[in-house]
Structure formats: structure tokens, C-alpha cells
């Protein structure tokens, strides 16, 4: 290895991504009709048809072994191909190229390429694919809905419009276990402040009857959701990986407190709209907000998504799309929410810093861990730096992350409690713990520790971080 002069390493990358429905072009020569979206679009027609054909063939083939559970992924030397049928006979396929190493050869021979076939984890990218659909559904509703509304003529442009932008935001090289969980990070908060937020939300909803659901976040962490879990999950994903980063400015928790006095003094406030009008004063301001679709007992409903932020506190107000949102309404909202939210934000901040002081200054945690609870989607990671729109930086070696992924797969297979402790070649210890619906992964860098010591370490971690929950030992 070392001998080889500068070999090139290529990370996994998106080869193609397409949506098709076999029932749309059943007859010979009509195959193109099946294809609803294809990326990259410049691929020439027959190639597209060919690839879609292969997918169909594989789906059919797998049905011979289990009619109800067709293919999820196809492994080949060069790439991985992921299949997902979100709605009846609508298929989404994502093809990811395996990472590879390009080794230059002496005397002008073309470089040899080695594909690293074990690097791409099915669970991770399968999740990424499902997320693509959920995200589409959040902003457009189901494919079926578009079909009813306007048939393929409507659906195709919708897909174009959405995926064209969305696919650019995929960062396949930095996907990992967290994408499998796609969990929600909750903001730790004391009871009293939490209750204050509760009554704030209730009062606003009482005051602005239009508001149907509210969600409250601080520092990009969720505190309250009036939406149901699954909707919140994907909305949270959108907020934290797309909307907030776009509007991010150094609003670090620390600053809020400083603002406190002048705020409480005269009621100037720091509230502003993240969606809709950038500036209320602007006479040209448009009062158009993004529309989202959420589940209801009977199907789904369409809502305006108003995201309003004051310092580090952000609130989502969701209003039935059937009503027209006027300047007047927005001004009322601004006048009502702005001051209260500003105050609340600094309250929260104070509490937060207070608790921090109590719990002692937060030094770099000696434990690197990921925690996830399937019950409430709560997620916690000391491995990841703050997720940004672009990449989620992890502080450990990718191989370790993949080992976590492997363990996670084992856990997924059976719904029994389980614990796995492995020692990797790099002398790192990796611990996976599954208790009831919770999963905990710990990475310890203690080369000479033995199983018993490692176990003690993990016990200590649970005692400090998770003493308030029931973890089978």
C-alpha cells in the first residue's frame, strides 16, 4: 500500500436515481412511458429503458421466492442499487457507486481500480432512499394524489421540480447510522420552563384560531410537537438539515441571555419569519408559505408552514392550506408571538446555562456514543458534530461507524434485547446495547482494556447519561 504512489480514493456517489411505474407502459415500445423521473436526465433513452428493465426483471425474479417481499437492494461489484415501492407499483430506485481506489500503474498502463464492495451499508442507504420519498411526500403529498389531481402530466413536473433540487442536497459520503434512525434530538429542559412553553403554545393557539398545529424548537432541538410523530420526524429533518442551516447565523445559546434586560424593558423583539415574508415592513412582501402534507385519520391534509424564529427559539405554526394568509394575519402573529417568544428564548437560555453550571462545565465527553429510542425517536449522539445542511461530521473513523451499522443490522433482525461487545482490529472497543425499544452504541478507545473493564465503562456511562430510564443490564 505505502509503496504505491498517490492512489486516489473515491467516496460513494450517486450514479442514478429514477422513479417508474411498470403499469404505465405495458406494451412493447412504450417502455419510455414507465419512466416518471430519471436522474441524470442526460442519459440517453435506451439506456434508461434498459436499466428500468433490469429493475423490473429483478423485482419479478424475487417474487418467485417471496411474492409479497420483493427485492430491497442489488449488490454488484461496482455499485449498490436500492429499491423502494412506496405506493402500489410506483418504484423508486437509487444507484450508488461503491467507493473505489484508483491505483496508478507504472509505465503508462491505465490505473487499476479497486471497488470496495463492503463499504456501503444497505440499511443506511435504504433509509436514505425512503427519506427521499418521505420528503417528497411532505411537500407534495403522495404520487397517487398527483395522479388523481392531474395524471402523469402533473406528476412528472412535480417529481422534476422536487428531486432536481433535493438530489443535490444528498450527501451520500456522509450517511451513517443516524440516517437509519432519522431520529429527533430533544432539548433538555427543566419541568417549569417546559410548562411555560406549553402555556405559551396553548395561548397562541387560542389567540390565533387558524393555527392547527404548533411545534417548538430551541437550538435546532425539539421541545414540543403538536404534530404526530411520523410527520414531525420528517419535518424535523427538513428544518434541521435544510431550513435552519440556510438561515443560520451565530445564534449561540449564550447570546440570548445578554439580550434579556433590554427586551423585558421595552417590548422590542427579535422575532422574524423564516418562511414567508422576509420583512413585514416591505410593502412588496409576499405572504406565501411552503405547503406541507401531514397524516390525518382519513388520509392527509395540506397545511401552510409558518416558521417563526426569535433568537435560538423557533416555532412552526401550521395552518390549513384552505385559508388565505394575509398581511394582517402575519402582522398579528408577529406582534403577538415576537415579544413573548423573545422573552421565552432568554428564559430557556438562562435555565439551560443554569443547568449546565449545575451539571458542571461540559468537557469533551470521554464517551463517544449514539443513543436512539424507537418509541419517541429520541436521538443523541456525541459522535456527530452539529449536523449542518452539507455534511454531518463524525469524530470517529468511518470503519467504526460501519461496525455500528453492522451491529444495528443484527439488532434489527430480532426484536429481543441484546448486547454486543466487539474489539475491532484497531483495538477500539465497540459496544451495542438494545433494551426494549432503545439502542445505545458506545465507542471506547482503551486499547488495553479487557471485556470486564469495558463493561464497567459502559455501566458508568449509563449511570451518568441514562440513569433516568430503564436499561436492562
Amino acid at each position, binding site marked *: 500500500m505505502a509503496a504505491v504512489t498517490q492512489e486516489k480514493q473515491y467516496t460513494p456517489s450517486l450514479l442514478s436515481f429514477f422513479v417508474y411505474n411498470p403499469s404505465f407502459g405495458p406494451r412493447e415500445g412504450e417502455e419510455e412511458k414507465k419512466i416518471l423521473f430519471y436522474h441524470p436526465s442526460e442519459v440517453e433513452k435506451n439506456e434508461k429503458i434498459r436499466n428500468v428493465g433490469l429493475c423490473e426483471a429483478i423485482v419479478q425474479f424475487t417474487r418467485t421466492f417471496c411474492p409479497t417481499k420483493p427485492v430491497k437492494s442489488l449488490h454488484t461489484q461496482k455499485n449498490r442499487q436500492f429499491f423502494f415501492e412506496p405506493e402500489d407499483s410506483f418504484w423508486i430506485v437509487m444507484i450508488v457507486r461503491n467507493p473505489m481506489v484508483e491505483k496508478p500503474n507504472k509505465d503508462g498502463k491505465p490505473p487499476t481500480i479497486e471497488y470496495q464492495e463492503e463499504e456501503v451499508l444497505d440499511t443506511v442507504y435504504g433509509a436514505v432512499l425512503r427519506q427521499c420519498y418521505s420528503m417528497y411526500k411532505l411537500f407534495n403529498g403522495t404520487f397517487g394524489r398527483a395522479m388523481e389531481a392531474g395524471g402523469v402530466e402533473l406528476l412528472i413536473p412535480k417529481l422534476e421540480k422536487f428531486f432536481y433540487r433535493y438530489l443535490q442536497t444528498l450527501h451520500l459520503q456522509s450517511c451513517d447510522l443516524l440516517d437509519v434512525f432519522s431520529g429527533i434530538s430533544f432539548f433538555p429542559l427543566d419541568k417549569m420552563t417546559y410548562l411555560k412553553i406549553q402555556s405559551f403554545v396553548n*395561548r397562541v393557539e387560542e389567540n390565533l384560531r387558524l393555527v392547527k398545529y404548533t411545534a417548538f424548537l430551541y437550538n435546532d432541538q425539539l421541545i414540543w*410537537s403538536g404534530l404526530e*410523530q411520523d410527520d414531525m420526524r420528517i419535518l424535523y429533518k427538513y428544518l434541521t438539515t435544510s431550513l435552519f442551516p440556510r438561515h443560520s447565523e451565530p445564534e449561540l445559546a449564550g447570546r440570548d441571555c445578554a439580550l434579556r434586560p433590554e427586551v423585558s424593558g421595552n417590548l422590542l423583539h427579535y422575532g422574524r419569519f423564516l418562511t414567508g415574508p422576509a420583512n413585514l415592513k416591505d410593502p412588496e412582501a409576499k405572504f406565501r408559505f411552503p405547503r406541507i402534507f401531514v397524516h390525518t385519520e382519513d388520509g392527509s391534509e395540506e397545511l401552510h408552514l409558518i416558521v417563526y424564529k426569535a433568537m435560538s427559539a423557533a416555532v412552526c405554526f401550521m395552518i390549513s392550506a384552505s385559508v388565505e394568509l394575509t398581511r394582517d394575519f402575519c402582522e398579528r402573529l408577529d406582534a403577538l408571538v415576537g415579544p413573548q417568544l423573545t422573552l421565552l428564548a432568554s428564559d430557556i437560555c438562562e435555565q439551560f446555562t443554569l443547568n449546565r453550571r449545575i451539571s458542571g462545565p461540559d468537557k469533551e465527553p470521554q464517551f463517544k456514543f449514539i443513543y436512539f429510542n424507537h418509541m419517541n425517536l429520541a436521538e443523541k449522539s456525541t459522535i456527530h458534530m452539529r449536523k449542518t445542511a452539507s455534511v454531518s461530521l463524525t469524530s470517529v473513523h468511518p470503519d467504526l461507524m460501519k461496525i455500528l451499522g453492522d451491529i444495528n443490522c443484527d439488532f434489527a433482525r430480532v426484536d429481543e434485547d441484546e448486547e454486543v461487545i466487539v474489539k475491532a482490529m484497531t483495538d477500539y472497543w465497540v459496544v451495542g446495547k438494545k433494551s426494549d*425499544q*432503545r439502542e445505545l452504541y458506545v465507542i471506547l478507545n482503551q486499547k488495553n482494556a479487557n471485556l470486564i473493564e469495558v463493561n464497567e465503562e459502559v455501566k458508568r456511562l449509563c449511570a451518568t447519561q441514562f440513569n433516568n430510564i*430503564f436499561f436492562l443490564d
Partner: protein
Amino acid sequence: MSEEHYLELCENPVQFEHASSVNNVFFDEANKQVFAVRSGGATGVVVKGPDDKKSIAFRMDDKGEVKCIKFSIGNKILAVQRTSKSVDFINFIPEYPHTEFSQECKMKNASVLGFCWTNWNEIVFITDQGIELYQVFPDKRSVKLVKSQSLSVNWYQYCPETAVLLLSTSGQGNVLQPFVFRNGTLSKMTKFEIELPVVPKPAKLSLSERDIAMATIYGQPYVMYLKHHSRTANSPSAEVVLYHLPREGACKKSHVLKLNTTGKFALNIVDNLVVVHHQSTQTSLIYDIHLREPDCALNTHQPVLPARSIHPYRIPLTGPVVVPSQPPVPCQLYSSSWSVFQPDIIISASEGYLWYLQVKLPPTVNLQQDKGKLMDFLLRRRDCKMVILSVCSQILDGGERGSLPVVATVFDKLNQVYKEYLEAEQMYTLAMESGPSRNSAAQKRPVRTQAVIDQSDMYTHVLSSFTERKGVCHKFIIAVLMEYIRSLNQSQITVQHYLYELVIKTLVQHNRFYMLHQFLQYHVLSDSKPLACLLLSLESTYPPAHQLSLDMLKRLSTANDEIVEVLLSKQQVLGALRFIRSVGSHDNVSARKFLDAAQQSGDRMLFYTVFRSFQQRNQRLRGNPAFNPGEHCEEHVVHFKQLFGEQSLMKAATV
């Protein structure tokens, strides 16, 4: 209209023969007794009061017009003033002689303005030249001067409650000299001056006793001065000025009640409210000196409620000649023949009635729109509980339901009082524990007034019915419950679990499970075994409840047995055993329980594992893998043999 009368005369007034040419009527504030003296007593004296039941009747010789007549405390001795020089005494203690004896005032050519009993046998004469305190010996029929003070007196007022005698001195009469009587002695208090609206030129008596009254409000003695407006001075309307009269130290002006009108007024004190009757408008105003209104200067008060007249009163026709069918006749309120006494007495001599004035709380509810102020007002009243609770239900009800902020303020005010009481209680119990020795004054057990509205009151009278009410949007219900819990937390009151149960019940009813989950996540619903059990019971409808309740049990840290039971009920026998081990009580659990669970699960492997582990335990503890007869595991041994054969049993030999 009628439901707006917040003042009323008591149901059963004290009735007496109304004043007439032949019948003089006197009232003694000390004993609250009305004396009807017919023709100077010759034809009889009837004493009634303090209530309609009690009455004393006797005769005495007519020795001239009676100026004043009062029983000593306990009706032992009767004192009658007929002349301006002397007072006569009549024994009312049975065994003592009944014949009168008399006492002249000591000071030369002074004239007696009046007298007051300060005890069963102590009496003070007030003359225009001073006061004289006497002790009366009914057996010897003699009177002994105890103490006297000479100063010129215009008029006097005596407050029996506080045993304070107030003398008007000086030319204008606005310098007031209080004396207090305590166990047989009289002590002079610092005198003070009432500032008059206008200083008359030339000086003349300008403070009339009618404008002064003494009363105790919120346990404090006050001198109330009805300050009439004057065209000259810049006081557009009359006002009542309260002078606080402390036991020690100077008396000083403390409160001003704005009457916002002029005319003839009379004062009463009812339930610590200052009631001002205004004759011309036939209405009354009430003031609460503990209500502070931000919008006016400190200690200046506006009426709590708009002026209303006393509730119309009908006089039931009684007496010898009564035609049953005859309807009661309405009684004329605010009549000029009324005389008003402290604290709450109204007498109509002409009709022969003594009423106690009362405050009716229900009407006030509709007169005060600001629920916050209303609460402040109600919380200070005597019989407020039911009214307050009704207000609570009212603001939650569809009709004139209050907004959440209003609800919040109401809750906060209630809980403030509640909290203060709890703290007092705590202090008390602490003091008790630390030993009742020190400052026994503080040791008084705090009284629980009706204003203390605790969680069970709210639960039973307001919340439980509210949550059941049809057609209320559940959003609002939950919001209200959360507000209440918030408010309790804010005043550091531990919330009772039945409130949490109410929250959970409501959430479950409208299957807002995710909300519930979030609440529990932030420990808004504090941990308790009952709550944990409730959650367990929800598992069938909401599986995550299982996890939530396990967490709770774990946090309680006193519920290890429960945890084991839960796990076993889910046939997580291994989980249970591992848990037991982690809490270190593995060696003293009953094998049988676990073996049963394992056997019921029908899982061979599980049974094998559990059985073997207990065999190992036996081995470890007793050096023999076999079970003791006491453990009652015979059937399990048999079962094990059936499944895996004799040879799989652990032999004592191994190890």
C-alpha cells in the same frame, strides 16, 4: 337587578318595641343589647340582643328620664344615667340585694357625658372635664374610684372590641385622645389630630362624633373619619379617611376611601370590608383596604364594586294580631330613622328592628369583570370557597369562558393563598418537631380559611366535571389542566397524582398519545407508583406506555419488585433475572416464581436456562444443585426431566 344586591340585612333581626312617646329605646354597643324603656322603666324594661332569642325584662322605679342605660359585661349590674351628675346601679346578681345605689362624678360641676362598662364590675364615666374609672361592689352596694384623668372633652367614642376610649378634645374637637383599658387599669395612648377639610375661623367645634367611628379591620384597630367635601377646599367629593391606631406608637393616617359623591353617609364594617351607605342615592359602596389598585396612589381606594342598594327587605308581620294570609310589607331602606352602629349593626328604632348587615358574595361575581380583581376580593371574604369554585367553573364554561391568560391568573392567585397556608403549616410542624418551647406565639396552628382552595377542591368541584363536559374542545381542556399544573409547580406545590391521571385520561380519550409521551418525557407528570400502574394499563392501546412505566418505576428506585413483576408478566424471565442480579438481590428471590414463568412461556430453551441457573445458585449457596423442599420446585424438576432427560440435570459431583 335583584341578583346584584351584594349587601343584605340578616334574616332574623332582633325585634323590639319601636320607639314612641312612652317608650324610649337605647342601644348598648358593648353587649349589642337594645333597651326598650317604657315610661322610664316603671312599666317595664325589655332588653333584647345580641340575637332575637335572648331577652331580659324587668321593672324599675321611674326616677326621671333615662339618659343612658347599659348592663355590665355578663349582665351582672345595670347602670342607668338619669341626671348629668350621677349614675345609678342596680344589682342583677340574684343573691345580692336588688335595691339601687348611685354614684356621683368626682369632679366639681362637671357633667357626665356618658359611661361605658369595661368589665363586669368596672365602669368609666366620661365627663366634659375628664374620665373616672370606678370599681363597683354590688354586694356592699358601694363604688370605688380607681383612677381618673382630667381633660376637657367634647365627646367620646368607645370601641368595646379593643376597649379603646376615644375622646375629642380641643376647640375644634379634632384632637383625639385615645385611652385603652386593660385588666382594671386605663392607659393613655398618644393623641393625634384629624386634619379637617377647612380650618374654621374663628375656631369652633367642627369635628362631630357622627363623622368618627372605630372598628377593627383585618385584625387592626382603625379610626374612621368621614371627611365631608367642602366647597372651599379642593376636595370635590367626600372621602373616608382611616387612621391606624396601633397599641403602641402614634396613630397615623393610613387609607383614603374615595366616595366620589357627596351627601349623608353612614359606615359599617362587614367581613373586613368598609361599607359606606349613601342615603340620598339609597345605595352602599364597599371598600377593601387590602386591595391595592395599581392605577391610584398608594392606599387610596376606589369602591370594589359599583354602588348598589341593600337587598330589599320585607318585614314579616308578626305580633298578636296576625292575619296569616297577609303579605309581608317592604321595609324602607336607608330611612332617616336608621341608626348605624359598628361594626355591622343597623337599627331602625321607629320600626323596632336591629339588623346585622351581611355581604352576599354571589352577586359580586357578575359585577366585577376583571376576574383577577374578583379573586383578590373573594379570597379575602369569609364564606368564599363555593363562590370561588363557581367562578372557576364559570371561566372554564362555554358561555363566558375566560381566555387562558385569565384562567392562568385565577389559578395563580388561588395557589398563592394555598401555598402560603401550606408553608405556614410546614413552619408549624417544623416548630413542633423542634420542640414547642420557644416563642409560643408563633406556635399557633395556622387556621385554614375557606380561601385555601386545594387540589382536591379544584378536582372535585371544577376540573373533573369540566373534563367530562361535552362539546368542550379537548385542546382547551388539556391547556387548562396544564395551566393548573403549571401554576402549582410555579408555587412549588407538589401535584397530586389524581390530577395527572385526569390529564392522562383526557389525552387517552382523544388519543393524543404523542402529547402524553412528550409530557412524560419532560417529567411534567411526576413519577409515582399509581401513575406507573395507570400507564401499564394503557399498554394495550398504546404499547410505548410499557416503556414509560418501566422507566418511571426505575426512577422511583423503590419499585424493584414491581419491575420484576412487570417483566415476568411479559415473560421476560431472563430480563427479570438479569435485573435482579443488577440490583444484587439474586440470591434471595424465590426460584419458583421464575420457574413458573419460564414454564408457562413454553419456551424449552428458556426453561432450561432458568432451571440450570437456579441449580447453579443452589450449588453456590448450599454446595448442592438440588432444590430444597421448601422451594416447592418438585414439579419443575419433573418437567425438566421430561424435556431434557435425567442426564441434563446438574450433578452434585460437577465443579
